[in-house]
C-alpha cells in the first residue's frame, strides 16, 4: 500500500468513545481527526476533506440532517458511518440508509473490530 493513509474524522460528544476509537484506528494506520461538536465537525470537513466520517446521530449543536446536507456540497467524496445509541426499531436507520449511507452501527458496539470492518467497507465503496 503506497497510497497515503486514509483520513478519518470522528464526530461524537462522548469523549471516551472518541478517544478509544481514535487510538484503535491510528493503530490500524489511519490518520485520525476528532470533533466533539457539530460545528467543529463542519469546520474539519471543509478544511481537511476526510475520506470518512464516523458520525454520532446526535451532536449538541448542529442537527445530523444539516451536517449530512453540508457534507454533500463541501466534501462530496467523504464516506459516512453512523454510530448511535438511539434505538428506535430501525426507523431512523431506514431513512439514513435510503439517503445512500451504508454504515450504520448501534452502541454499545459489538466490538471495535466490527467498527474497523465497517470503516474499511465504507472506504472501498
Amino acid at each position: 500500500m503506497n497510497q497515503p493513509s486514509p483520513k478519518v474524522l470522528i464526530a461524537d460528544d462522548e469523549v471516551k468513545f472518541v478517544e478509544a476509537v481514535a487510538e484503535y484506528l491510528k493503530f490500524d494506520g489511519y490518520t485520525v481527526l476528532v470533533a466533539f461538536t457539530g460545528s467543529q465537525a463542519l469546520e474539519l470537513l471543509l478544511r481537511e476533506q476526510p475520506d470518512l466520517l464516523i458520525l454520532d446521530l446526535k451532536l449538541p449543536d448542529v442537527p445530523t440532517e444539516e451536517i449530512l446536507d453540508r457534507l454533500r456540497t463541501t466534501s462530496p467524496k467523504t464516506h459516512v458511518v453512523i454510530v448511535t445509541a438511539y434505538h428506535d426499531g430501525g426507523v431512523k436507520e431506514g431513512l439514513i440508509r435510503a439517503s445512500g449511507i451504508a454504515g450504520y452501527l448501534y452502541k454499545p458496539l459489538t466490538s471495535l473490530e466490527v467498527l474497523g470492518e465497517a470503516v474499511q467497507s465504507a472506504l472501498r465503496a
Partner: protein
Amino acid sequence: MSLLWQTIIALAVIDVCFLALGTFVAFQKIQPDIKWTFVLYTLSLSIWTTGQAAAMYLPDHDLSLLAVRFCHIGVVMIPIFLVHFLFCLSGVAKEKHRLIRNFYVVGVFFEIANTTPLYIRDVTLRPHWNLGYIFEPAVLYHVFLLFWFYTAIYGFVIMFKAYKRAVGQRRNQLQYLLWGMLPGYLGGIPNYLFGYDIVIPVLMPYGTYLFAFYVAMTAYAIVRHGFLDIEVIIKRTLVFAGLVGSVVAVVSLVAFVSQDVLARFIQIPKWLSNVLAAVIIAGLYGPIRNWLTNVTDRYLFQKRYDYKELLKTFTDEVVTVLDLRRLVEMTVERLASTIKLEACALLLLNRERRRYEIAASRGMKEVTLSINEDDALIALLRRTQDPVLRDTPGKMPDRVEGRLDQLQAKVCFPLVLHDELIGLLCLGKKKSDEEFTKDDLDILMPLAKTEAIAISNAQLVAEAAQKEKLAVIGTLAAAINHEVCNPLNNVKVQAEGFLIKLKKGVFDHFSKEELTQKFTELLHSSMAEVDRSAAITTRLSNFAKPAREPISEAVNIEQALNEVKALLGHDFELNMIRIQQEIPKDLPLIRADRKQIQEILFNLIRNAGQAIERNGTITVRARQSLNGRVQIEIQDTGSGIPEEHLGKLFTPFFTTKGDGQGTGLGLFVVKRLVERNDGTIAANSARGVGTTFTLEFPADESALAQSAHR
C-alpha cells in the same frame, strides 16, 4: 299577672298537650295494650290538669270542691296507668299481671276514698297564696302520696331495667321516655304539695311547663322511633303549645312592665297595656310561629333532614370522586359527621393478600386492622348481603359479635358489586347513644350499594392510570435506552481497546507501576460510566412506581425541572425542541411532593413536545403570584387545542390522539396529582399559536419566612 292566673294558664297549656298526644296515639297502629294504657295515662293527666285549673278558677266553694274531687279521679290513676303502660312497653305485663291487678285494686280504693272527707277534707282559701280554693289533705291523701312516690320510683326502676335490656328502636324509645319523665315529675310534684301549704318557688307555676317538655320528649320518642305519619300533627301541636306560651309570656311581660315597673312613674290604664300586648302579639305572631316551626323541624325532625343532606352530599360530591383514597376518606368523614358517630371504618378487599383491610377510619382504636377472607363476619355478609346489627335480638355467633366489637361497629354494611364482597362499611356507636333503627338501615343500605359502585369505578380508574403510566414508559424506552447505551458503549470500547493493546504488545515495555496505573484508570472510568447509566434507570423506576400518598416537602422547581429534562432531553433534541427556562433565582420553594411534581412537569412537558412535533420551543416560566403561591406556566409553540376540547381536557379517557396512541388519562392523572398537592391547574390555548398550562402550588411557608427575613 297573678300567680293564680299563671298557674291556670300553665295547666291549660299542658292539658291541651296531653289531650293532643293521647288522641293522636289513640289513632295509631300500635300494639293495643301499649297504646291504650298510654292513652288512659294521658287522659288521667288531662283530668288532673282540667280539674286543678277549674278548682283554682271557680270562686264558689262547693263547685271548687267538686272540681278538686274530679281532679283527683285523674290524679289517683296517673301512677297506676303509667306503671301498667311501662310494664306493657317492656313486655312483662303478663308476668306482672297480679301486681298490676293489685295496683288497680289500690286505685279503686282511693277513687272511693276520694268521695269521702277522709281523702280530701275540704277546700279553703289561702289568702297568703292567692291561689283560689286549695284542697286540704286528709289522712288517706297522705297514704296516697306515699303510694304515689312508691309507684313513681317503681316506674323509673322498671323503665331503667327495660332500657338496659332493650335493643334497637325500643331502647331509643325508652331512653326518651326516661329523660322526659324526670323533669315531668319534677314539674308535677309541686301540684301535689301545695295542699300542704308548700309552694316551691319557680317550680310553681313554671314547673308545670316541664310537663310540656315531657310531652315533647314522648312525642319525639314516638316520632323518631315509631309512628311516622303523626309527625306533622305532633309538630303542629308543639308549635301551638309554644305559641300559647309565647302569648302568655308577652301578656305577662307587658302587664308586669306597665303595671309594676312603670306604675311608679306614670299611671297606665289597664286597657292600654292590654292593647299594647295585643299589638305586640299581632306583630310577633308570624315570626314566632315560623321560628317555632323551624326549631321543631330542626330538633325534632333533625335526623331525617340530616339524612337528606347525607344523600345529597353522597350523590353530589362523594360518589363522583374518582380518586380511591379521597373517596373512602370522604365517605367515612361525611358519615361520621352527619350521623355523629363515635367510630366509623371502611375496609376494602386486598385481592393479593386475600384480606379486608381498613382503607379509611375515624375514631378507631386500631387503624390498621385487617380481617381474613374466611372470617365468620365476612361469610355472614357474603351470604346474606344484608347489614349486620351488633345488637340483634336473638342469636348471633360469638365470633361475629367479637369481630364487630373489634371493629367498634354497631352495624356493618356489605359493599357488594356483582356478587363480590369488595368491602365493608362499619358504623360505630352514635354519639347520641341512640341505636340504629330500621329507618337508618333503609337509608344507609342503598347508600352502601352506591358506595360499592363508586369504589369499583375509582379502582378501575386507578388501574387504568397505572396502565397509562406504563404506556408512557414504553414510549420513553427509546430515549432512556440512549442514555444507558452511551455509557455501556464507553465501557466496552475502552476495555476492548485495552485488550487489543495488550495483545499487540503495546504495554510490553511498560513498567509494572505504569501498567497498574493504566489499568486503574480504565477501571475508574468504567465505574463512572456504570454510575451514569444507573442514575437514569433509577429515574425511570421512580417514575414507574404506583401512586402513593404525597409527602409534604420543600421542592425546588428548577431542580425538579432539570430531572425532567434529563428524561426527555434526548428525544427533544432529536426533534429540535428547545426548553426555555424563565425561573427567577429568588423563587420560593413550594410545599409539595417532589416526585409527584416531577411527574406533573414530565407529563405536561412531554405533552407539549408532542403538540410541537418538530422544531419549536417549550417555555417554562415560574413566578410568585400575588396571593403568595407559586405559579408555573408551561407554554408550547404547538398546534393548540380547539376550544371545544379545552373543557374536556382533564376528563378521564378523553383523547384526540389516534387509536392506541393515548389512553386519555395523562392529563386526568396530572390534575389528580396537582390536587393532591393542594395545587390548581388550568389550560389556555389558541389554534396555531400554542397552549399554556398554568399551575399553582402553595409556597413553602418556612422558605417564605426566610425570604421575608432577608
